[in-house]
């Protein structure tokens, strides 16, 4: 029982990442009708916003410490971050400590700008082109983006820890009446789940309760008519692309303490997020969220020792197996609409 609750928590956590990426993908597909293979790269860029921000905070000057030696026996070069000088060593250290959450503020404008530039500069020219062309050009873009990141940051993972205060785990056991210590879950992962839930709620509220969102939804349903009403729907869609990029980017920023980022992390998520979107039903926002969490939980259960012993290898294929079963029983995914992407 404890194990099952633990795996549900794990699933919600994994599902948060899947759902956030799938949400962005679906926003782009739903509004612009573009299959964006560079979406994983946006997630990765978000994570590297956190890395860059950490680098910015730790920008340092160097002095030679004669009392210590480096590996060649020369005086050791000691780096001191400027923030330590400006705010004092303690405040400086705690600012650096909180770099990942602070990076959110940095990532939102950066990602929106990246999204808008991408849409205006490239994607715009591909609205009327076949999906295969869209896939190819965005895939090419994804490769280019990740190679640029690799060029500057290297191929290895870069540690970006959560703030010290978020270390440690929360004891769920006591909360739900189990033994203390039986179900503990890391704070940061709980934060990630709550953050994802909040972000999803914000996007839905934005679409549901603002005039802007209403127009966008109308545009998703019937672009031409909205255009005929004299509304500049293109501009709004461009902004939605920026929003989708920001959602993916924020998912990436907050993910960095869970898995240290490297240039390849976007590609690792790309296939899985497409499976999530399709299982949820192309173009359906609630479907994407539902499928994200569902597949996350399923994957967690399949990685339990008891399950693997019974069905070796199931942990590696369960998502694909689920996708096949769902698509065969529900032709348009869980909540898909008729006639979308079937031609």
């Amino acid at each position, binding site marked *: 029982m404890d194990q099952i609750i633990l795996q549900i928590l794990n699933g919600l956590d994994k599902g948060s990442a899947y759902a956030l990426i799938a949400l962005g993908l679906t926003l782009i597909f739903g509004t612009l009708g573009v299959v964006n293979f560079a979406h994983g790269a946006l997630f990765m860029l978000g994570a590297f916003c956190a890395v860059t921000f950490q680098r910015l905070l730790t920008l340092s000057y160097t002095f030679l410490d004669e009392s210590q030696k480096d590996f060649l026996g020369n005086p050791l070069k000691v780096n001191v971050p400027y923030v330590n000088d400006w705010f004092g060593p303690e405040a400086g250290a705690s600012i650096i400590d909180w770099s990942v959450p602070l990076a959110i503020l940095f990532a939102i404008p950066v990602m929106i700008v990246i999204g808008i530039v991408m849409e205006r500069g*490239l994607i715009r020219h591909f609205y009327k082109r076949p*999906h*295969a062309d869209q896939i*190819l050009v965005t895939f090419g873009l994804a490769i280019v983006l990740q190679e640029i990141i690799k060029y500057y940051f290297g191929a290895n993972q870069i540690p970006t820890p959560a703030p010290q205060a978020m270390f440690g785990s929360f004891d769920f056991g006591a909360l739900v009446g189990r033994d203390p210590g039986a179900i503990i879950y890391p704070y940061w992962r709980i934060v990630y789940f709550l953050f994802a839930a909040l972000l999803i709620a914000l996007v839905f509220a934005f679409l549901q309760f603002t005039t802007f969102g209403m127009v966008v939804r109308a545009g998703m349903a019937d672009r031409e008519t909205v255009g005929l009403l004299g509304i500049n729907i293109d501009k709004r869609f461009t902004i939605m692309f920026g929003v989708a990029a920001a959602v993916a980017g924020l998912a990436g920023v907050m993910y960095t303490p869970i898995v240290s980022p490297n240039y390849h992390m976007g590609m690792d998520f790309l296939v899985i997020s497409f499976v999530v979107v*399709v299982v949820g039903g192309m173009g359906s926002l609630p479907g994407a969220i539902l499928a994200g969490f569902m597949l996350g939980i399923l994957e967690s259960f399949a990685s339990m020792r008891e399950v693997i012993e019974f069905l070796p290898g199931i942990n*590696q294929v369960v998502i*694909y197996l689920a996708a096949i079963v769902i698509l*065969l029983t529900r032709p348009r995914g869980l909540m898909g609409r008729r006639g979308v992407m079937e031609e």
Partner: protein
Amino acid sequence: MYGLNRKDTVLLLIVAILVAAAPLLLNPFPDTSAMGKTFNAGYPDLMQRFVIFGIFAIGFNILFGLTGYLSFGHAAFLGVGSYAGMWMLKLLSINVIPAILFSIAVAGAVSLIIGWISLRRSGIYFSILTLAFAQMAFSLAASVLTPITGGETGLQTSLNDPRIMPGFLGGGTVNSAGNIPAPSLLGMEMSESFILNVGPWAFTFNWGYYICATFMLLAFYIAIRIFRSPFGLMLKAIKSNQQRLNYTGLNTRPYMLTCFVISGMYAGLAGGLMAAMDPQVGAERMQWTASGEVVLMTILGGAGTLIGPVLGAGLIKYFENIFSKINKATLEAWFGVFPDWMTDLLVTLVYPFIGKGWHLTLGLIFMLVVIFLPGGLVEGGQRIARLFRRGKTGAGALKPAE
């Protein structure tokens, strides 16, 4: 000729001549020159890869180019074919023919099953179904199925293979030198080459390459026949409007399934040839990136055209094998004639795009081709040809090129 109209015969002949002369054409620079050391591609491994991936892409194009169904799991058939061929080389005989035939058969059977299920859906749902099957095949091959597939290391021939056929048919566990025998046909190993030195040039005529090339020409010929057949017309009709066909009371699924299986068998042939040319099968040739690669090859070259996929395959393999090998020392040698500061500048400018940066160049090329040449390289060729024709006959005399 052989059921082809004049235009197609000419195309086939041109391809045949190009393929036959590839060892000459791909080594345009003297062997020992700096250009030759870097850009010559006429060595057996790469030439074999060109035609093998050409076959793979031709097969993929029969499905995607004709019907518009985008399979994102085609590498699975290539991988299955490779494993099947490899097991023949291990169990039966080191002769490549049984291995290749078995590869085709097994890949055909697997594609029948996967196609039968996946073709229940269309559009992106079909793509995801094929992707899911291929990813499952890859994950299992790399882990749980290690006894059959050799896991992540891959499957190889070994000193303990039975190879039950009699010796003159390629049986036998070890060769005369006490080593593992290499795949062969008619008593000649795949790696055997005839090297022709003409002045500073060296041209390598490799036995394995010509076997692959023969299969490729056969595959190309069959593809032309399919494109021009009533069956091919039916597939094109499915691409333009499957619903309308269904409404006329026509059941399109048998046609689709046949097409899918043919395409899978092409992949199996490519996989079998890969195992025969280089007896090692790694699971990663089934990964989604490998499936993606054949999609890229086809679109890059020109989907739906006969020759496009082959060109796309050639270009991508050229990049992977030639550009990835240029290192900083090579660059410094190239630009060494300039003053030092200029050498440094040029090396700094060019270095990110070659060697370990070859992915970056490839990504940029995808983008440029898709943006400016939606019809792929074939469209590029047509545009150039049109320019020349315009030059001769003046504007207005244009006929839509096919």
